[in-house]
Structure formats: C-alpha cells, structure tokens
C-alpha cells in the first residue's frame, strides 16, 4: 500500500510540474535563427515593446525549424499556443494554417496602422493569397541568387556575369573544360538541389506557366516546358555538379565551395554573412539566375496572429512596432539584405554583397517562390523525390514529369 501511495504521489508531482502557469502577456513563437544579429534583434523587440507598454510581458520562444513546425501542430491540436507565430508564407506552410482558420484576419489593422503603404510589394504578396481578408504581416523577404567564385570564373576565361540562360550554360561548359564543376549542392536536405529545378522551371516555362504548374493547375506530364525543365535539370546534374552530392548536406557543400572545389552556389541573401565569416568577400560575386522573366526567386516569412489569442489588439501593436521605420532602421540587415519596410535602406557600411542585393531587389519584376513553399507538404515530398531520382540518373526527364503528374492526379 505504502508503495502505491508513494508511486502515486510521485506521478502526481510530475503531472503538476507539467502544467505550467500560463504567462501573463504576449507569447511569440519563431524559428531559431543561426545569426546572432537576428537573435539580438528579436530580443531587442521584446525589451522595447515592454518598455513602450508597461505591464506587458513579452515572451519570444525560438525553436529549430522542424521543432517549430511540429510545435505549431501541437498547439493547433490543443488550447495552448502563442499569440503570434512566425511562419513561411507559402501554401504548404503558413498558407495551410491560414486555410485551417488558425490565422486572424488582420484587414482592420492593415487599415488602421497603414501597413499596406509601409511594406514592400514582393513581401506583401502572400497576405491575401490563401483566404478572405489579410493574413499575417511580412517581417522578412529572402531572395536567392547565384554566388560565384571570381577566381574560378577567371580561370575558365568567363568574362562578365552570365546574362542569359545560354550564357550560364556556356559558362558551365567553359568551367568543365578546366575541370571545375559549375555548382555544388548538398543532396541530403532535398531543398538545396530543388532550388536549381525551381529556377530552371521558371526559365523554360515563363512566369505564368511556372505558377500554374506550381499551383497544380497545369498537367506536368503534357506540358512541354515541364519536360524541358527536367531535361535541362538532367544536363546540370549529369555533367556540372560537384560529385558526389547526394550524400552530403548544404553545409558540407558550402565548405567545399569555400575550398574552391566548385564555382557556383544557388543561395539566399543569408549567404552573405556566411561568406563574410568564412572567407574573403572580394573573392565572390553574385548575379540573379538568368531565368529571363525578371522575377526574383525567394520567399517571405510572416508573423501571424493566432485565432486562439485573446490579445489580438496587443499583438497587432507589437507587429506594428516590429515593422516600423524606427525599429527596422535600428536592426537593418538583421533579417536579410532588404527590410520589408520600404522606407528603410542599408547604409554605406553595409557588406559589399548586401549592397549588390539591393540592386537585385530593385531590379526584380515580381517574385516566385521555392517549390517547397508553393506545394502542399505531400507534393513537396514527391517533388523532392522526383528531382533526386532524376539527379541520380534513375529517372529520365519524361518519366520524371509523368511521376509528378501521376502523384498530383491521385492525391
């Protein structure tokens, strides 16, 4: 008997510790950013908002990417959860939550705070994409471009940055003649190799058809530009990748790139601080992948107000402060090269490649998103598989296109 009571009391004690008192104040969930600058910007936002609003306790919870995703799932199935959550804005990610009714319609706040005038066009594109009204507010827009090793380009006799897709292919051939692989990718993470497929698809299909394919409105099997994209993709993976690549991840690929083992990487604007920390920035240049459509390849991260929150007004106030001219100016560069706030510009002391990024953003004519942002999760998984099969020579282009079509039609 005694045993049992001690047992029960110990279990009960555990149960008690599990139930933590709900915090008074505003809870915000975001992913765990690797850059110290971003972390300190978030911490600063916490402090500043508490200063401006005495009596409010802001708690920012940062998690790893996958943990953040699952944590939100957990929260959606129970009554606990954040007031504000950060998420990627694409259909398979933030969009799914919007469609599931997890996000509060922010139309009235957009109006009263004038967010629509303050924020940049590309970043705002997702707020109305998935449901009635306006959902979430962008706090970061990330673009992805080609970074190249100037020395290796020179060695291959490539003059100037490729301006067309043909130029780029010619450059790859010239590099190969010198025994230099054009690109390095890490295959284990799936989304790294995918980037090349995304931009090639934009190149062969043009903006309209690209979007229709990603929205699964066009048939992958019968649309010629999809087949062409897979054919082009195969050209790259067969001949112009640093191999082996399927068994390494993106970080290992980056290490090899810094070791001059390959000429180019297809990376985001977050790559600039990485170059700054690991190498000499003057060694590298960048150019937008020449898709010919002029659209910038990239994705947005949003902050959403949860429908389970009873502090929507306070949360909106926080979002307003976070995207304000003052706050964004104070933390310029923390969330990518370009602020989502139109009125905020990088200063002269910005990193060299960050400045180039501003030109890329300025020159961009619209945007298109990564495949894993555009598709629902199950299609993304299949898209990864098809690309990887193709990249490892197991699937011919037509078969790849057929596989995509078959999967989409039978979901």
């Amino acid at each position, binding site marked *: *008997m*005694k*045993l049992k009571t001690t*047992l029960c009391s*110990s*279990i009960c004690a*555990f*149960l008690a*510790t*599990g*139930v933590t008192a709900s915090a008074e104040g505003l809870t915000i969930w975001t992913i*765990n950013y*690797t850059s110290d600058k971003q972390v300190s910007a978030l911490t600063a936002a916490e402090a500043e908002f508490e200063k401006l609003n005495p009596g409010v306790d802001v708690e920012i919870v940062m*998690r*790893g990417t996958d*943990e953040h995703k*699952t*944590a939100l799932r*957990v929260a959606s*199935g*129970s009554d*606990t959860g954040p007031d504000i959550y950060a998420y990627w804005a694409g259909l398979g990610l933030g969009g799914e939550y919007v469609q599931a009714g997890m996000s509060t319609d922010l139309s009235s706040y957009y109006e009263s705070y004038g967010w629509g005038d303050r924020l940049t066009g590309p970043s705002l594109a997702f707020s109305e994409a998935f449901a009635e009204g306006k959902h979430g507010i962008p706090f970061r827009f990330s673009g992805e471009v080609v970074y190249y090793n100037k020395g290796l380009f020179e060695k291959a006799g490539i003059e100037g940055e490729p301006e067309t897709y043909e130029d780029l292919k010619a450059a790859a051939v010239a590099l190969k003649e010198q025994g230099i692989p054009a690109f390095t990718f890490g295959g284990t993470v799936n989304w790294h190799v995918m980037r090349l497929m995304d931009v090639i698809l934009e190149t062969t299909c043009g903006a309209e058809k690209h979007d229709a394919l990603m929205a699964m409105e066009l048939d992958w099997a019968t649309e010629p530009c999809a087949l062409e994209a897979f054919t082009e993709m195969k050209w790259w993976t067969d001949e112009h990748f640093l191999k082996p690549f399927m068994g390494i*991840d993106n*970080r*290992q690929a*980056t*290490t090899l790139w810094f070791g001059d083992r390959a000429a180019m990487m297809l990376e985001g604007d977050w790559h600039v601080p990485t170059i700054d920390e690991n190498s000499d920035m003057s060694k590298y240049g960048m150019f937008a992948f020449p898709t010919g459509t002029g659209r910038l390849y990239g994705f947005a991260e949003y902050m959403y107000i949860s429908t389970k929150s009873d502090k929507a007004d306070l949360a909106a106030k926080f979002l307003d402060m976070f995207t304000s001219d003052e706050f964004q100016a104070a933390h310029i560069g923390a969330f990518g090269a370009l602020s989502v706030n139109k009125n905020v510009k990088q200063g002269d002391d910005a990193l060299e490649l960050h400045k180039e990024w501003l030109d890329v953003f300025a020159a961009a004519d619209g945007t298109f998103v990564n495949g894993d942002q555009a598709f629902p999760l199950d299609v993304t998984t299949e898209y990864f598989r098809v690309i990887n099969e193709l990249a490892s020579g197991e699937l011919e282009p037509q078969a790849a296109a057929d596989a995509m079509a078959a999967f989409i039609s039978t979901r």
Partner: protein
Amino acid sequence: MTTTSPIVVAPRKRRDPVLIGLWISLVLVAIIWLAPVAFITFTAMKSESEVFSSAAFALPSKIEWNNFALAWAKGDFNNTFWNSTVITLVKVPLGLVISAMAAYALAQIRFGWNKMLLVFLLFGAMIPFQVMLAPLFTLVNSLSLIDTYPGIILPYLAFGVPYQVFILHGFFKAIPKELTEAALIDGASHFVIFRRIFLPVCLPVLAALLILDFVATWNEFAMALVLLQDKSMWTLPLGLMSFQSQFSNNYSQLNAAIVITVLPATLVYLIFQRYFVSGLTSGAVKG
C-alpha cells in the same frame, strides 16, 4: 561417428593450430570492431585542419580538448545531459518497481486469468512502438503533456513494463506459491512478503534489468523525437541529431559531440559488464 581422426582426439591440446587460427581471426574481428570507435575518438581530439591533413588512424599531434568544450557549449549539452539524467533516473527505478509489483502479483496471487493478463502484457514486448508514434503523439498531446517529463516518462514506462514483467515473472514463478500463502496466513502483507522473500532472491536480476533499462532509456530516440518538441526538453540523442544537422561541416566538434553522447553509457557498460550478459540471457534464453 567413429571415423578415425586421431590428431584432434586429445582434448585441450596445447598450441592446437586450429585454435590459434581461430584466436587470430577473433582478434582481427575485434580490431575491426574497435576501429570506428578509435577513428571517432581521434578525430574528436584533432584540430579542424589536422582532420583534413592527417591520416585517419594517425594519433592527434596535440589533443584539442577545446573541441569538447566548444561542442558542449554549442550543442547545449548542459541542458540535454540534465534532461536525459532526470528522465532516466526517474523512469528506470519507477519502472522496475511497478514491473516487479505486477510480476509478483501475476506469479503469486491467483486471479483465474493470470495467464491471459501475462500474454496481454507480453504482447507489448513484441510490438514495435515505432508504428504507434503518431497516435502516441496525439494521445500525449491531448493530455497536454508534450514537452514535459511525465509526457515522456509515462510512455517509456508503458513500453518498458512488458519485457521486465516477463523476465521477473519467470523468476518469481520459481518460488512456490505455498510459501507465500503460508506467510499470508501468518498475517504478513504482500509488501512484507515481497521484501523479505522475493527481493533477496531476485536482486541480481533486478540489477541486470536496471542497467539494461538504463542504457535503453538513455539511448532512446524515436519516442523522444515525437514527444519532446521543445529544445529545452531535449535528451542527448535529440541534441546529437540536431548538432549533426547544424554543424555537419565542423568535423572535429561533431566527433567530440558523439564522444560526449556515447561516453556515459559506455562507462556504465564497462563497469557493470557482467550484468549485461546475465540480464540479457536470463530472460531471453531461459524463458
């Protein structure tokens, strides 16, 4: 049977060539078996540049203890170590207590459906919990126990009970029921009987189970992956996995992190080696 082969007739002959060959091959296998461990340990102690420049099995020219310190800090090992320790130290003794109670009841008290209950429990030892990760997750989530110690300890207990009950039951059954019944008539409670008669007998088995369970709990990954979402609640295996995905390009620190993760269980194993063998064999083979 009676073919003549006089050479090998003499048993335990000195310098039997077959035995020497056998011995050499066993030692070779042992060297191969140890090689990965040596490679990892050496890499962990080399500087990053030496990892790339020196041969795989070359001893580090200078031991970089700093790798361990850096890996410890980056991987947040303070936290994961603490969580693993708490979870293991609570789960293992608690699990043994409830298993021992259940095994005692099943072996010594007549219910009528003892056998069915035993089979019911045994069933769980055979079912891979990996197939139930999703419903387990929804269950724990619906109890609001995700990211809590009880949220992981209770499922651990549930999946640890069957095997332990099974083994302990085998031992308890060997003690005649008449002994228990006589003691009961004399007014002893089950608790007293258990402590006085059973505990002394099964102490070695309990010790073996304790250590086996320690290692199993310490190493468990899949359930923790699903039930512990919050980084601050992670156990060592989760921490290592995350370390690998974050610092996959920093080889010496990655290997240092592996060493840190593996070391505690290895030490426990080396100290209590004989219990491992007896624990494993007592249940599986005799049962």
